[in-house]
């Protein structure tokens, strides 16, 4: 049936049926790919579960009130993490008092008042992003140098550690607060300004109150990160034997992560059990903090 002209087009074939009985999504290669993807997720969760189980198994024997109330001791059966618990409370408390006002104020300036076009302000933004990625131990070195400059000999004091932690999580607080501020729609600001309010009045009375849930969530998460930090504090000499209750900003102290590090390094199995138990305690506190943050976000976050 082909035409006779030399520039003939292809003769029409009967089209291949489309009911092939196969499914392109189910080709072996595609299935293998999907399997690999699920495997990735599975491995990640498997390791997580293994970690939690091993920690629990190691530490369960030592989960008792002794852990909470006793001081460290050379005898693993007598030792407890009391100074570490109190020390963590002091350190995180002092950190919160310093970093939250500073971080929120800086974020408000960058988000609401700074002229975005000026190069200096873009430089500050870049700087904050960079600080967020600096290794935590460098903040310890910074605190070490600063305290040396001030002539402080015993650097293992609450305020020293809090100083390092404050600067460590400051960029995180700034970034999270800026996101919360950005989520407030422009119309709210416009409405306030059109009534004759100043920019500060608008920020203080409309934007900040509306972004409190987001700021609270971000702050709690940042503080929970500070709670788990050990490296900067090590540099300040935190790995000492503390047998008293930390009781002030200038007091010696230790924290839960440092105590875990301490006990992990000892040879006796009893201390490893203590490390495991303290890990469980630390994880429990972190879970509570994260749950609180998520609860605040879900309950109070405004849907515009």
């Amino acid at each position, binding site marked *: 049936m082909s035409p006779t002209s030399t520039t003939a087009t292809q003769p029409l074939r009967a089209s291949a049926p489309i009911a092939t009985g196969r499914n392109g999504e189910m080709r072996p290669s595609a299935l293998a790919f999907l399997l690999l993807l699920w495997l990735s997720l599975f491995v990640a969760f498997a390791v997580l579960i293994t970690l939690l189980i091993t920690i629990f198994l190691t530490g369960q024997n030592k989960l008792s009130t002794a852990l909470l109330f006793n001081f460290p001791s050379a005898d693993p059966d007598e030792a407890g993490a009391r100074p570490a618990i109190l020390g963590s409370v002091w350190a995180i408390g002092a950190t919160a008092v310093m970093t939250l006002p500073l971080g929120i104020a800086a974020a408000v300036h960058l988000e609401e008042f700074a002229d975005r*076009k000026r190069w200096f302000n873009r430089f500050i933004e870049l700087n904050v992003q960079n600080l967020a990625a600096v290794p935590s131990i460098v903040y310890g070195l910074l605190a070490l140098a600063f305290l040396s400059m001030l002539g402080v000999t015993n650097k293992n004091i609450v305020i020293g550690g809090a100083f390092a932690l404050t600067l460590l999580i400051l960029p995180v607080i700034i970034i999270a607060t800026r996101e919360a501020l950005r989520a407030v*729609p422009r119309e709210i600001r*416009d409405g306030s*300004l*059109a*009534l004759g309010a100043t920019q500060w009045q608008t920020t203080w*009375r409309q934007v900040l109150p509306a972004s409190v849930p987001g700021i609270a969530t971000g702050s709690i998460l940042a503080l929970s990160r500070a709670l788990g930090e050990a490296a900067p504090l090590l540099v300040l000499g935190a790995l000492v034997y503390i047998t008293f209750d930390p009781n002030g900003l200038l007091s010696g102290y230790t924290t839960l992560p440092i105590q875990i590090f301490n006990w992990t390094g000892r040879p006796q199995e009893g201390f490893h059990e203590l490390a495991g138990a303290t890990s469980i305690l630390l994880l429990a506190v972190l879970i509570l903090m994260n749950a609180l943050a998520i609860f605040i976000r879900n309950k109070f976050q405004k849907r515009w």
Partner: protein
Amino acid sequence: MSTPTGSAATATHTNFHAAETRRLAATPSGLIRCEDVNVYYGEFRAVTGVNLEFGRNEITALIGPSGCGKSTLLRSLNRMNDLVDGARVEGTVLFQDEDIYAKAVDPIEVRRRIGMVFQKPNPFPKSIYDNIAYGPRVTGMKVDNMDDLVEEALTRSALWGEVKDKLKQSAFGLSGGQQQRLCIARTIAVQPDVILMDEPCSALDPIATSRIEDLMHELRKDYTIIIVTHNMQQAARVADRTAFFTALADESTGDRTGVLVEYDLTRNIFEQPQDQRTEDYISGRFG
């Protein structure tokens, strides 16, 4: 009054009730005046060479196709454009013979005196009461009794009856039309002289729209109102005077800039437009 021409009459089946019952001067006595106003966003000129005088205690409508700078011009009247990066106003905007862009002028105060209602109702995430009380509080008004002020503002906005039992509830619980009347109420609460309205009914249904239009007639007794609308019939229903804008294309860049074509009593614009472009727009040939 001569019989309206065919096309103009069919395009605007309205009553000019408002304009008929008030004896308006042929030219307005300007509370706000624009003298050769050009508004730029960076290098782009959004509005070119506007000369316009808005009458005291009148409702003036700015109409025209989209993209011809009506909202831009409106926002220049209360210095809201200051908040846009790169926005610049050349020429003079006079309020009671004072240049509002002069150096000694506080833009915050300008915005109190010249209020604005936006296209999409934007109540604050606070109670109805606090929405109204916000303006007086932040502008430092001396208030003997805030409750009375709130009630007065809501009454003037034809909203009091509907919300008087739920003043402490969130403003977000109101319907769209109610929210817009709330926005009008809170604007009134700071005692402006002028109320600018940027397409205030475009997000509302017809019933809510007509309630707001009725409200505008009431408000005109105490305030000067300037409204941007892309709804010609609305302009014909509410406005004493109407200004028609269009967009001119710049040959070199292809950018379109807004220009004022014609400004007259509403009746004249709709029945005896002087400019062909006005007639084309009114009769629906374009826009």
